[in-house]
């Protein structure tokens, strides 16, 4: 079920009313409703894949209980590995099987051996990368004794399948979300209104910004051979805003929806395009995934400690794994490696943590230096996005070589005036609200309520009038 669909517009109020009015007396009934609603939400795409979620839930629930009873460290490790193998096994099979087979074939044919392996027609279950990582965090934390395993199966099932963030995050940690299922939720007017406001902003980002940018980005990328360098650059910028609007929009809707049900999810984006360097960008982009890799991969590898060689190795591992998490294609791996190369000079010079505050925190406009820093960081990010968007590596390289020539300094062949206007307004609002969790959280609070309501009304009407053709969220494929 898509957030930006009529189905969800009907589904959400039904679940909301059942949750607060019919089943509000008993916590376990409310949690059971969350599980049922989540399975309906997920099954709307393909009910067959519900078995995968259920199986992951059963395995990790059982392993959590077994870990609590087991004191032998070797046996505890075996239990942890069972969880890792089951979860990553599913992920590996559904997402990476054909990739590895294809690359083995290419490698063998390179050495003069032609093999005919069986490739499978595998459908990627929506959101498998997200819920796999979420449920893995539970077993790892229980293994590390940082979290008490739960005996409440319904709460655990609700944690694994929680519908607002099931298919595209934020990837929640068990230590943060699971305990919220143990306590009775109280309806809070302000929290619910904040949730609606965040849903509104998420929908605006997705429907008005991302979907409209997608139309032009797709046109330019699909026919890139016939466009000038400036048009290709514009196409790459449109894609940068498409993926930001799409993914951060989804996160906003997920977080806002959770708030309607009394839950708090982690912030997943913090105006990343206003970052002054790549390190800051990665602290602000897909925060829940970055911190997951940091805590479960980077730090166990040694992080930024140890020799320079180890530091370089760890940075490359974390970024390449992150790239590979996004998709079974060399383009994602190169995208990750490119970001590692951007990041490495900062780490090696010890300058990766200098921009930890919000840019121009106490002023309306950035300084010239900050402006240039943001421009360079955004430019580097856009170049990396070309690899993310391209169908293969040679296309990305060809795209970039055609982009960086004299035609870069000509007037673009495609100039969508209304979209550019929307982007300017969007950037202005994001800039004005950059200190908040989401841009419009407190943005217009200095105005009287009727004026604020009118602004929200205008935003909804813009979504209604200028919403592009309904498109799936990009991150569903990851």
């Amino acid at each position: 079920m898509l957030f930006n669909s009529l189905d969800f517009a009907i589904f959400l109020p039904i679940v909301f009313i059942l949750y607060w009015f019919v089943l509000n007396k008993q916590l376990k009934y409310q949690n059971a409703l969350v599980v049922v609603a989540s399975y309906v939400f997920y099954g709307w795409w393909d009910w067959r894949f519900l078995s995968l979620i259920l199986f992951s839930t059963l395995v990790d629930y059982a392993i959590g209980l077994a870990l609590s009873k087991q004191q032998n460290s070797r046996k505890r490790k075996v239990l942890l590995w069972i969880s890792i193998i089951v979860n990553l096994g599913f992920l590996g099979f559904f997402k990476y099987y054909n990739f590895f087979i294809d690359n083995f074939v290419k490698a063998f044919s390179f050495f003069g051996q032609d093999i005919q392996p069986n490739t499978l027609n595998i459908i990627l279950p929506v959101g498998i990368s997200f819920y796999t990582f979420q449920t893995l965090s539970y077993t790892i934390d229980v293994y590390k004794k940082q979290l008490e395993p739960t005996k409440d199966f319904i709460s655990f099932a609700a944690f694994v399948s929680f519908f607002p963030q099931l298919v595209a995050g934020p990837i929640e940690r068990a230590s943060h979300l699971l305990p919220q299922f143990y306590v009775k939720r109280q309806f809070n007017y302000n929290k619910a209104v904040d949730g609606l406001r965040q849903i509104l902003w998420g929908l605006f980002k997705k429907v008005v910004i991302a979907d409209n940018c997608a139309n032009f980005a797709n046109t330019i990328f699909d026919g890139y051979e016939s466009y000038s360098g400036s048009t290709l650059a514009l196409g790459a910028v449109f894609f940068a805003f498409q993926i930001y609007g799409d993914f951060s929009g989804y996160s906003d809707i997920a977080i806002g929806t959770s708030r309607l049900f009394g839950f708090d999810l982690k912030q997943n984006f913090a105006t990343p395009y206003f970052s002054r360097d790549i390190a800051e960008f990665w602290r602000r982009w897909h925060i829940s995934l970055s911190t997951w890799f940091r805590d479960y991969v980077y730090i166990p590898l040694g992080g930024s400690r140890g020799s320079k060689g180890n530091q370089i190795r760890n940075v490359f591992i974390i970024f390449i794994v992150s790239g590979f998490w996004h998709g079974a294609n060399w383009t994602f791996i190169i995208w990750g490696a490119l970001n590692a190369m951007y990041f490495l000079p900062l780490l090696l010079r010890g300058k990766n943590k200098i921009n930890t505050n919000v840019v121009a925190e106490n002023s309306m406009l950035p300084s010239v230096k900050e402006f240039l820093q943001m421009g360079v960081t955004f430019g580097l990010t856009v170049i990396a996005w070309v690899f993310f968007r391209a169908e293969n590596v040679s296309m990305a390289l060809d795209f970039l070589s055609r982009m960086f020539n004299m035609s870069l300094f000509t007037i673009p062949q495609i100039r969508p005036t209304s979209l550019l206007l929307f982007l300017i307004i969007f950037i202005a609002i994001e800039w004005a609200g950059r200190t908040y969790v989401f841009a419009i959280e407190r943005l217009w609070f200095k105005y009287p309520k009727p004026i604020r309501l009118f602004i929200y009304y205008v935003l909804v009407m813009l979504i209604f009038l200028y919403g592009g053709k309904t498109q799936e969220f990009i991150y569903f494929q990851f």
Partner: protein
Amino acid sequence: MKRFLLHTVLFLLLLLASFFMVFSMADGTTDAYYKKLSSPKQASLIVGSSRASQGIHPDMIDSVYGSNNMYNYGFTIIGTPYGKAYFNSIANKLDRKDKKGVFIIEVTPWTLSEYEFSSMNDNKYPEDDNYIAKTVFVNMNPNIEYLIESFKSKNEAIVRNKNRKGAYQTFFVHDNGWLEVTIESDMFSKISRTKNKIESYRKKIPEYSGFSEYRLDYLIKTITLFKEHGEVYLVRIPVIKEMLEIENELVPGFDKKMNELAKDSEIPYINMMPLNLDYDYTDGNHLTIDSGKKFSLDLAIQMDKFRKNKTLK
């Protein structure tokens, strides 16, 4: 909680009223289909492809033949070939109370051919998922079902398109369903469009695998349905020679098949193709506005002759 619900419901009502207001502005400028799918049920229909949609003027038929409020319910060869989807839509559009209707069924080899897509997709036809299949309520105004499910443009186009009526490169669907396409009429533009159209239709041939029994079945069902409610005419609209050659390649002996069908169904088949040099075309495939009027007039005369002959018999 009550305060939250009250405020949310009030805000939603305001929004729904605003959405409804925008939808209410949809009309013949919105797109080439909306008006046809939002007009009342009709007793006399013209059905077929874009050739019929643009080329048959209901008012001309009414004035000569004496029919009462003919309605043009033709769409496109891709959107409405004869099949389950179009048949259901026609059946929903038909005012079944009236038994004195007049029906023109336009036929072309394209709308009666098997599309390769179907054999690749377990006999699922391309039109089974399009606007014609999805729009169940074909006489609702404003047609919210169509605007939400099938309208391809952004909703702002409903408002913006209202200003472009009559402008070049636009279209307008009249109250009687006739699709008026305003397009450059200079010779250079016509030659260029014709060349492109011929090329694109020639490229389409490999996508088809000849005459379709499935489509023929639904054409027969359409004829049977119409016969219960009035007089039925099977019509072929002329095109230029090059286009006819492509169609002959697509379905050899098409006219013979139509003649046999007409004979079996006891309805006239009016093949206007031999008169193709009498008319002018925007792209070799669609009649110009003036030629459409002349064609409609000629067609109405032919229909009238058939009616008189039938009466004499």
